[in-house]
């Protein structure tokens, strides 16, 4: 098998996990010439229920589109972390919001765990909590280098509403920096 990468973005409904997944999938399909799928799962509560988007990026057609061997896992809520951590591969990169998710010590032995105050940064440093998902996409790309940075930046421009564009590009660039730092320095939770 050639290139095959599975991501899972999990949160609670309303946080933007599905949008974040769509940005990566679009970047893979329209700006990188990969195959990609995005499968959202949510509950009937819509807001407040555990939600996730599974994204698979591959250089060959994807037959079964649900992630069963996750390489990168983003969790922005404890409920989502607990519900959807089951399909992670050993050594997977796990990014969590340090204010909202507590990763059990035993999990940190199996996965590479990176903690970052996503919501706080989005709200107070970037200026709007809605940029949280783009911030997370930035960290994901910086850390995993799964897709070309410019391909993702172009997709962010296409996907976010124009009046929030500057804010989101700022979030993306901040995320990239954080992600690259994580890449150099390794997991924050040992």
């Amino acid at each position, binding site marked *: 098998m050639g290139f095959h990468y599975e991501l899972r973005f999990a949160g609670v409904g309303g946080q933007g996990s599905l949008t974040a997944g769509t940005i990566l999938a679009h970047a893979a399909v329209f700006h990188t010439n990969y195959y990609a799928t*995005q499968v959202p799962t949510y509950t009937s509560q819509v807001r407040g229920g555990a939600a996730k988007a599974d994204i698979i990026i591959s250089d060959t057609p994807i037959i*079964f589109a649900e992630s069963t061997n996750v390489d990168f896992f983003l969790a922005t809520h404890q409920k989502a972390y607990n519900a959807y951590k089951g399909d992670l591969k050993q050594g997977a990169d796990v990014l969590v919001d340090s204010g909202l998710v507590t990763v059990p010590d035993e999990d940190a032995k199996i996965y590479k765990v990176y903690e970052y105050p996503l919501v706080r940064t989005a709200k107070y440093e970037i200026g709007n909590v809605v940029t949280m998902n783009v911030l997370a996409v930035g960290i994901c790309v910086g850390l995993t280098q799964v897709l070309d940075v410019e391909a993702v930046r172009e997709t962010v421009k296409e996907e976010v509403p124009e009046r929030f564009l500057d804010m989101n590009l700022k979030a993306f660039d901040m995320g990239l920096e954080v992600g690259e730092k994580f890449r150099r320095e390794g997991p924050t939770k040992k």
Partner: protein
Amino acid sequence: MGRIAFLNANAAVAEAALVAGLGFYAGYPITPSSEVPERLSKIMPEKGLPFMMMEDEIASINACVGASASGVKAMTCTSGPGFSLKQEALGMACIFEVPLVVVDVMRGGPSTGLPTRPSQQDIMQARWGTHGDHPIIALAPCNAQEAIFETIRAFNLAEKFRQPVVLLTDGALSHLHTKVYIPDPEEVEIIDRAQPDVDPDNYYPYDYNYEIPPLAKWWTEDGKSYRYHLSSLIHDKTGFPTVDPKYTQWLLKRLHNKILNHVDEITKNEYYKMDDAEVCIIAYGSTAEAARVAIDQAREEGIKVGLFRPLTIWPSPEKQISDIASKVKHIIVAEMNLGQYKLEVERIVAGRVPVYGVGQAAGVLIRPSQIYEKIKDPSKSVEICLTEEELKRFGGGE
């Protein structure tokens, strides 16, 4: 040239319906099918086509039956609970013999069940949901690209056979976003209902001389006006009610034979690695994709296993399944329900070889690993279940 898009299967079905010539949509939104009307509600008004958000599912399908009877291609879309409500009018469409496409995005049941989760629990509802002896055509695509071609095929079959066609997808497939190609109408075969070659005065909507009588549009381009009667009661060639036993038996036989005599034309199947297979997985829709991955894995270990996938669920491919039963050691039917299509397979196989099932109705896709385990040991139960320890401390789920 068509166009490339990154869509989920619901949006793909909506786009494909327009390619097929959809002229009227009426519906009532329901998860996980709502992206179909969402997309159509934007596009249809721009094209000057009527899109009606109705007060409920019953009104929706009745509006579609009426629209189709007047001469346009009509579609409605729903999920399990809404499909239950549509059953009465679905039967009416069968006996009226009006073309109609009903999309059912299957979610977990019974009742309101699991609104956002996938299932394949409406297989028998699609076949026998409406009462009385009636024929039905039901199709089940396995990915978004195929959903486009099967939607077009659903319209074509409906038009050709004067028959409601059910398109079955599921809650997972409907939300699976992937790259698809949307063809232009010129690139695909589009069938429109046959029109009478007689004047309005000599036209009968159920003319005895035909296996499938032409269904006249209520207007023609040269200004003729065909007016006729449609009745949900058993009717004679004029469309008016009759209780004559001979006509009654004749009508019911014709309703069935117009499908059964053309099964080869209506059924569509995929054989995957079946050439030398000793074990056959029968799966359809999303589950077939999991089976494909499992089969590849088992093949790497030298296990001779293949997939038979009906794209046309009803009428069932009896000849093909019977033929498989004469060649393999056993059959495994994998589906997101507790064994509905397995019943049909067992009926056809008639005990010649063992038929095992992977029957999971847990609101999640059956995974390749589960089917792989079943291939390795068909006697093993591979469905998700609570362990004894979990049963003891079970206190409610997320």
